[in-house]
């Protein structure tokens, strides 16, 4: 396994990325950058992380040939099984890596933001395992709709701090975590949950998540003796997508980023009916990076919408914004209904209940199978247990 090292002076992907943060946070962020650059070259650090990925997180995850789905779609489909990672999603790949960075930096406290609770749980897990005090910011609205994950975090010894500002969802939880960090950086590490945010987070998170793609690259060559025609992954902030895409960027593989189409393309003054910042967003600055965002003409951030809490974010990582611009990554949308179809179909056909987020990639594949070519990989970023209540409720609507 080898991580793509981010280069000291390169904080941007084309015009995207950068560090648009208050001065008080520049020093903490530069320290994280420096620590990560140093550690990513350290054999000991990598051995340590690889040990945890293997023995604690349960890696490698299988690349599963989904025979029934393949038959349904008339092409050969493999599923990358991040649903089997400890905690139930790819999120732990990143939290393990960053928590080890935090440890090496001598920090004793972790803070994180969470929307659906998956990154919060993954942070609480590493907090417990590696002995940090852990506090997770979560919007009040999200706390209400994700009670079980709140309880999981608490069981794991983390404190969940309700965020009452703004739209009281993920976006505001991130704001609040930055505010905390601005006062606490001395002992505290901000463990960001997706491949967005100020540099070095987009690169670092992509690197830690690229274990997905590195495994998949090796596995598909072993199984098929060739690379896939296509890889599809869902996109919230972009961490699972960049994780599986990164090791294939130089290859002739079509990379499809499936965003939340939500209820459609509608907008109001303050809200968008989707979470499709890559497909429908415009250039802007959110959470420390210049990227594609959902905003009004004046630059106010819109509240996004998706049935999948993990895709319900008005921004996206800057590297994906760049890769969209260059045409290397194709942004696509799956709306709520399509995602639900993916959710049901994968459950029935293969006995795998995907996360609603991942179900967007599956749903897209069901709708546009030709886009997948003859041999494709779909990234199943997480398992759907967390979404049962949501889907049940949606059904009765």
């Amino acid at each position, binding site marked *: 396994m080898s991580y793509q090292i981010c280069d000291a002076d390169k*904080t941007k992907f084309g015009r995207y990325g*950068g*560090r*648009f*943060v*208050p*001065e*008080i946070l*520049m*020093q*903490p962020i530069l320290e994280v950058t420096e620590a990560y650059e140093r550690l990513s070259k350290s054999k000991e650090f990598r051995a340590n992380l690889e040990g945890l990925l293997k023995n604690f997180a349960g890696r490698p995850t299988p690349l599963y040939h989904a025979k029934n789905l393949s038959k349904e779609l008339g092409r050969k489909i493999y599923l990358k099984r991040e649903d089997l990672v400890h905690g139930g999603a790819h999120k732990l790949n990143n939290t393990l890596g960053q928590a080890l960075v935090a440890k090496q930096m001598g920090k004793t406290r972790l803070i994180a933001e969470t929307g659906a609770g998956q990154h919060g749980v993954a942070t609480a897990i590493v907090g417990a395992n590696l002995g940090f005090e852990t506090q997770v910011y979560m919007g009040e609205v999200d706390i209400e709709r994700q009670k079980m994950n709140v309880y999981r975090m608490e069981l794991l010894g983390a404190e969940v701090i309700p965020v009452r*500002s*703004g739209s009281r969802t993920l*976006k*505001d939880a991130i*704001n609040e975590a*930055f*505010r905390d960090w*601005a*006062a*606490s*950086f*001395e002992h505290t590490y901000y463990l960001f949950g997706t491949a967005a945010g100020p540099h070095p987070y987009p690169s670092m998170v992509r690197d830690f998540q690229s274990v997905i793609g590195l495994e998949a690259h090796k596995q598909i060559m072993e199984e098929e003796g060739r690379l896939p025609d296509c890889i599809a992954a869902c996109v919230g902030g972009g961490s699972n997508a960049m994780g599986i895409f990164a090791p294939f960027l130089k290859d002739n593989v079509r990379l499809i980023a499936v965003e939340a189409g939500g209820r459609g393309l509608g907008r109001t003054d303050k809200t968008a009916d989707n979470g499709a910042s890559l497909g429908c967003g415009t*250039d*802007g*600055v*959110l*959470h*420390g990076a*210049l990227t594609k*965002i959902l*905003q009004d*003409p*004046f*630059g*106010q*951030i819109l509240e996004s919408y998706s049935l999948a809490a993990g895709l319900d974010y008005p921004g996206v990582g800057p590297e994906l914004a760049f890769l969209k611009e260059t045409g290397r990554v194709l942004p696509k949308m799956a709306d709520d209904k399509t995602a639900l179809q993916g959710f049901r179909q994968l459950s029935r056909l293969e006995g795998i209940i995907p996360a609603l987020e991942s179900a967007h990639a599956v749903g897209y594949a069901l709708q546009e199978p030709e886009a997948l070519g003859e041999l494709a990989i779909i990234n199943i970023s997480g398992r759907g247990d967390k979404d049962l209540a949501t889907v049940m409720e949606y059904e009765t609507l």
Partner: protein
Amino acid sequence: MRLSEAFQAKPLLIVYICAGDPSPAATPDLVKRLARAGADIIELGLPHSDPVADGPTIQAAAQRAIAAGMNTDVYFLVASEADVDIPKVFMGYYNMIFARGLDKFAADCARSGISGMIVPDLPPEEAGPLHEACLRHGVDLVFLAAPNTPPARLEMIQKETSGFLYLVARAGVTGARSDILQDTRDLIARVPDGVPKAVGFGISTPEQAAEVIRAGADAVIVGSACVDLIARGEIERLEQLVREMKAAIKAAKKSKAPIVC
């Protein structure tokens, strides 16, 4: 008036308010009252949906202002109407500027009598294009330095800033606090005398303001304390606070012996 001109008459009191709070219509009058009460510079905030550098007080003000119809177009109307003979400084997040277009934004500032811009989420590294736009339109671009800004970086920021240097009084976000830390004193001391320096974030009482001036600052920025009074509709007490602050820093300037509080 250019900011550098204003800084001839130290010590200065800079007062922050959020444009549009409680309503766009109320803002011009408020600015005039503050000027009459003794403010030397008005920092006029453009509310943003995601004010990451601000504490609860200013966040709430921004939400009220947005709800009351504040947007960038209205902002510049209001700023023009707030016709005072002290400088006005824009304060707001980069995305609002970026969305309008950097050049247009700087031009609108100049047109509506705004002398400078404070953009708390825009470090010098990312500020090149805006800097150019500001130069084109004769608007100062003020950078911030914080207690944890290391020496080399502080030097770079000093060089890059124009108008004055905004010193962040302490770690955290905006919001009233009860003490001034050694960190702040150290930061003030680290900036050479030639650089006009204003200290903000957390200064809410005349005593604190005086202390900051005694520590060597050229100006004091007061924000949340004022916003709080506006939120409560206590405009006379606001004027009173401004008067007291102004008196305190003037007195402090004369007797420069530091007091421990």
